[in-house]
């Protein structure tokens, strides 16, 4: 009886106390649709539409994910034409023997297409001889059985006549979807008879007739007159999941049964059905919808076929809205009692199947351990749950985030062995394990007299390599070397070598800790040795760091994490000419340069070595609300010196950042909805107790500190406090903002050795305010620096907070 794909019908046999209404929509192939068939007309279109509605709905998803990785990605939920085998011919197992499918079972869709295609063709060339004239006088009514079986009739129009209401109903009526005939279509007698039979057996009508009326142009107009089935009123509603229930075997009803035997037979059926209801799993259907349907039943009084259709649509809409794309109302049972039973095949997952494909699409044995993939799958996708398309998308995103696969497909597939079951099939194409890349660039360095010469052409570039997914456990080694001059790489050579070891506690442990070990070096211009406003160029100090870092990251959520580890590094401070310098330089009032400025290192030699513990905990519950960030982010970082290194550095350097994004107006969430205005409050405190070399001093000023100033223009201090407020007003898909910021050294500039703040004539505190607009990734802003009272335009990449 549960031929999902096939139009399976039950006779509305008046004898039966209960009647079942099976799959009221004819020829509806079960498709896992992400678009709910909310209206009656859409269900008919859904069966005829392109077979991959899901594919298209995933295009946006694909795009968003592809933006972050080059991997082509596709969540491919195949349009399912679920044929549970029973549709055709088995008699459907329903009551009254009416469950018999019409034999079109699984290929309902194609049948439909077959019918539909010529109709379209016909519309193009109406005068072609593909159809035959009825050959009768015009305007006479012809019974269906009077039509010639050898002719192909063209149907000019289809009319519905509701005998109960005594009116002709329009195409907007929910019954219209039941009919597969379409105006302009060409049908022979057998087809029309089949149609009538289909309608008669679907359980929606107590009586249905079809007659033709001849038109002068040789076509016929078909009128379908019907009486809608009704049952006694019900005041209870129950929804059950019959997905994985075994098929109940119908007992053949003998034609020559006595009345008593018949009664017995019906009683046993009734009992069976009761047992079946009891054994069925409860439905996921939410109670508000349940109540809504109860209300519908109460309002209606008698249960009519139209009402059942409405209930079906409502229930299915809920399932589709919630993402249960494979759910399908297959039957209404227990009619003519106080309770209406809605039988749903929800799409229970029976198996999760992970496959690796090679470049040609052949199934191969993958390198990746399956557990790595499985741990990224939401619980909802595991066997025993109902397939949900959102969970599928989540799995897709999670797996993609592993960065191991070039192509990912998540496919629900009907389980051939257990009807009503879904196998979630995950097809993965692995990326190459080893990659190496060389990129080169030439830079022209101004030679003598500022003019570039041939000799000043410098070849530079980057060499990167990566060995990923070692042992199939997503461990990786990657490294890169960058230089601006291959001929003389010792001038500036940046390298990084990193080993990443995820699932430190085992791939099955829910604790998600990742070990990272890296060697690094970096070269940065020290913002400590920067002049205040109006100060002539201060000779720059470069801070080179090279060292080893080992840390463990514990991910609590996607954004919140705790990292702790050990850093060992050597810090070298150099002047413009790359000479190691132990002190900052300063320009004397008479124009000379003196090298007795603030000390650059703790040791006083220009080279420091130190080892310290570093811990960072980030709590981030921000989320995007229609494109605007709301929520809060707290970061605490501490560097704890261990007394190991030059001059036995022992210190505790800590910083706490608190940022909150307040939503100023409630808005509806959803695509196309405007984002809310947001107030951002931000505070940053940094402090250090103990040994503080100047390169570790906190600097004030800069795009991520106090806007409107240069990096370090306000000062460099032992303790700092930064406060910022920004209000963001959405405008046409982006936002404009106004901000005010303040940075203060809390009087601790003098606690940095050599007082670089004062030596370079900085104030130690400063405020700024300004306005800006976000243009894509770029922020354009005008900021006024309060210390000098002058404003300037800035273009910045990325976010301030």
């Amino acid at each position, binding site marked *: 009886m549960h031929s999902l794909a096939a139009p399976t019908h039950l006779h509305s046999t008046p004898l039966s106390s209960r009647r079942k209404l099976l799959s009221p929509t004819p020829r509806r192939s079960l498709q896992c649709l992400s678009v709910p068939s909310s209206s009656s007309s859409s269900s008919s279109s859904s069966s005829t539409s392109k077979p991959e509605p899901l594919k298209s709905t995933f295009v946006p998803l694909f795009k968003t994910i592809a933006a972050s990785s080059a991997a082509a990605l596709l969540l491919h939920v195949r349009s399912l034409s679920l044929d549970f085998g029973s549709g055709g011919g088995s008699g459907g197992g329903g009551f009254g023997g009416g469950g018999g499918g019409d034999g079109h079972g699984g290929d309902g869709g194609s049948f439909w297409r077959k019918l539909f295609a010529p109709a379209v063709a016909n519309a193009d060339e109406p005068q072609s001889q593909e159809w035959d004239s009825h050959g009768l006088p015009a305007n006479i009514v012809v019974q269906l059985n009077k039509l010639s079986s050898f002719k192909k009739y063209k149907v000019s129009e289809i009319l519905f006549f509701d005998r109960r209401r005594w009116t002709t109903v329009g195409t907007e009526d929910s019954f219209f979807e039941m009919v597969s005939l379409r105006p302009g279509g060409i049908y022979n007698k057998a087809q029309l008879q089949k149609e009538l039979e289909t309608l008669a057996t679907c359980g929606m009508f107590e009586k249905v007739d079809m007659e033709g009326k001849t038109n002068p142009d040789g076509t016929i107009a078909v009128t379908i007159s019907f009486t809608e089935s009704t049952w006694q009123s019900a005041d209870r509603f129950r929804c059950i999941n019959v997905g994985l229930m075994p098929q109940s075997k119908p007992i053949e009803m003998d034609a020559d049964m006595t009345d008593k035997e018949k009664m017995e037979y019906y009683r046993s059926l009734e009992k069976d059905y009761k047992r079946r209801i009891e054994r069925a799993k409860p439905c996921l259907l939410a109670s508000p919808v349940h109540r809504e349907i109860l209300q519908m039943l109460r309002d209606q009084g008698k249960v009519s076929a139209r009402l059942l259709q409405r209930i079906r649509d409502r229930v299915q809409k809920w399932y589709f809205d919630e993402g249960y794309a494979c759910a399908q109302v297959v039957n209404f049972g227990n009619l003519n009692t106080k309770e209406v039973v809605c039988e749903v095949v929800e799409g229970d997952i029976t198996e999760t199947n992970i496959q690796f494909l090679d470049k040609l699409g052949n199934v191969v044995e993958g390198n990746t351990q399956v557990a790595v993939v499985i741990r990224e799958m939401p619980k*909802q996708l595991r066997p025993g749950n109902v397939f*949900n398309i959102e969970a599928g998308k989540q799995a897709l995103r999670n797996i993609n985030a592993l960065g191991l696969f070039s192509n990912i497909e998540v496919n629900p597939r009907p389980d051939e062995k257990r009807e009503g079951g879904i196998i979630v099939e995950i097809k993965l194409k692995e990326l190459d394990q080893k990659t190496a890349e060389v990129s080169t660039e030439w830079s022209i360095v101004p030679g003598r007299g500022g003019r570039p010469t041939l000799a000043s052409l410098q070849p530079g570039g980057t060499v990167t390599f990566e060995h990923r997914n070692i042992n199939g456990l997503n461990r990786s080694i990657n490294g890169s070397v960058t230089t601006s001059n291959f001929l003389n790489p010792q001038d500036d050579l940046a390298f990084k070598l990193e080993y990443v070891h995820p699932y430190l506690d085992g791939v099955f442990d829910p604790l998600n800790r990742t070990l990272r070990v890296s060697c690094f070096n970096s070269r940065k211009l020290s913002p400590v040795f920067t002049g205040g406003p109006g100060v002539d160029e201060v000779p720059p100090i470069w801070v080179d760091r090279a060292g080893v870092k080992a840390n463990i990251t514990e991910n609590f959520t996607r954004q*919140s994490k705790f990292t702790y580890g050990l850093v060992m590094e050597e810090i070298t401070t150099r002047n413009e000419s790359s000479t190691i310098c132990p002190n900052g330089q300063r320009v004397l009032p008479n124009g000379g340069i003196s090298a007795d400025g603030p000390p650059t290192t703790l040791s006083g030699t220009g080279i420091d070595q130190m080892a310290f513990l570093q*811990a960072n*905990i980030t709590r981030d519950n921000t989320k995007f609300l229609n494109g605007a960030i709301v929520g809060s982010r707290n970061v605490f970082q501490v560097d704890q010196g261990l007394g190991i290194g030059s001059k036995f550095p022992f210190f505790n350097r800590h910083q706490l950042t608190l940022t909150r994004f307040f939503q100023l107006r409630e808005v509806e969430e959803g695509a196309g909805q405007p984002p809310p205005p947001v107030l951002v409050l931000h505070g940053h405190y940094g402090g250090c107790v103990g040994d*503080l070399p100047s390169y570790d001093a906190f600097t004030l000023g800069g795009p991520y500190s106090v806007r409107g100033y240069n990096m370090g223009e306000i000062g460099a201090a032992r303790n700092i406090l930064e406060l910022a407020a920004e209000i963001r007003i959405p405008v046409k898909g982006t936002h404009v903002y106004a901000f005010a910021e303040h940075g203060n050294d809390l009087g601790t500039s003098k606690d940095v050795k050599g007082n670089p703040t004062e030596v370079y004539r900085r104030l130690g505190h400063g405020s700024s305010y300004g306005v800006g607009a976000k243009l894509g990734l770029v922020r354009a802003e005008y900021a006024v620096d309060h210390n000098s009272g002058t404003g300037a335009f800035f273009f910045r990449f990325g976010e301030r907070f």
Partner: protein
Amino acid sequence: MASLIREWVGINTFASATQTKLLELLGKLKQENVNTLTILVMGKGGVGKSSTVNSIIGERAVSVNPFQSEAPTPFMVSRSRAGFTLNIIDTPGLIEGGYINDRALEIVKRFLLNKTIDVLLYVDRLDAYRVDNLDRQVVKAITDSFGKGIWNRAVVVLTHAQLSPPDGLPYEDFCFKRSGALLKVVRLGAGLKKRNKQDFALPVVLVENSGRCNKNENDEKVLPNGTAWIPDLVKTITEVVSNGSKSIFVDKKLIEGPNPNERGKLLIPLIFALQYFFVVKPIERAIADDIEKESRPSWDN
């Protein structure tokens, strides 16, 4: 003090009345067991610091150049008379190019290392009508270098005192106004609070170093108001010396300040523990809370 201490012969060049007064004052100091007096002279460039030094000593001990900043380094003049030693330290001007000359200040500080300052003469001109931020900076630089306490030992010296005030203002009024404005700046620059005003009753002395300085019947150099200024200056200095405040001993700590890197170092283990329990743990709890409250899709339960 390494430099040779010469006999104070310059005192003899003063008028006899002045000499008498000076010896009287020195005698008074000796009675209070003060045998050495070290005077630090500081101020902006070109206000007459060196001239003042020369005037007190009574000889051209320090070369004075009216058009150039003279001494790039501090210079100490030591003279002794009857068992009493007078040290006067002349310093270069602290201002160069509109800014505090940190280097000069640094040199002064180094020079003063392990010396005791009994009196600070803060020199400025009487005939400068305005005070500005620069004055404040100079005062601040001095305060930062030697601490607030030095202002207990300070005398404000206003040079070029022989002038006719503008707009026919009475001389006394003008002096009062000028010194009032300057004192205000000094108080501000030294970071003295209002309530300390009484404690810091900075004495102001007027000085005229010019050779054209008027003299009275005793051949003493006098100011337009008739005061003989050399004895007045020395008298004020002796008063400051005996006002009960401490001399400033310049040691390494005073020059370099306390080593901020050492401060609180012992507390670091405690701080680290507190951070763990009162910052990291609460954040962890907040994260757990977030996970709890996270709005999950309806299918994820």
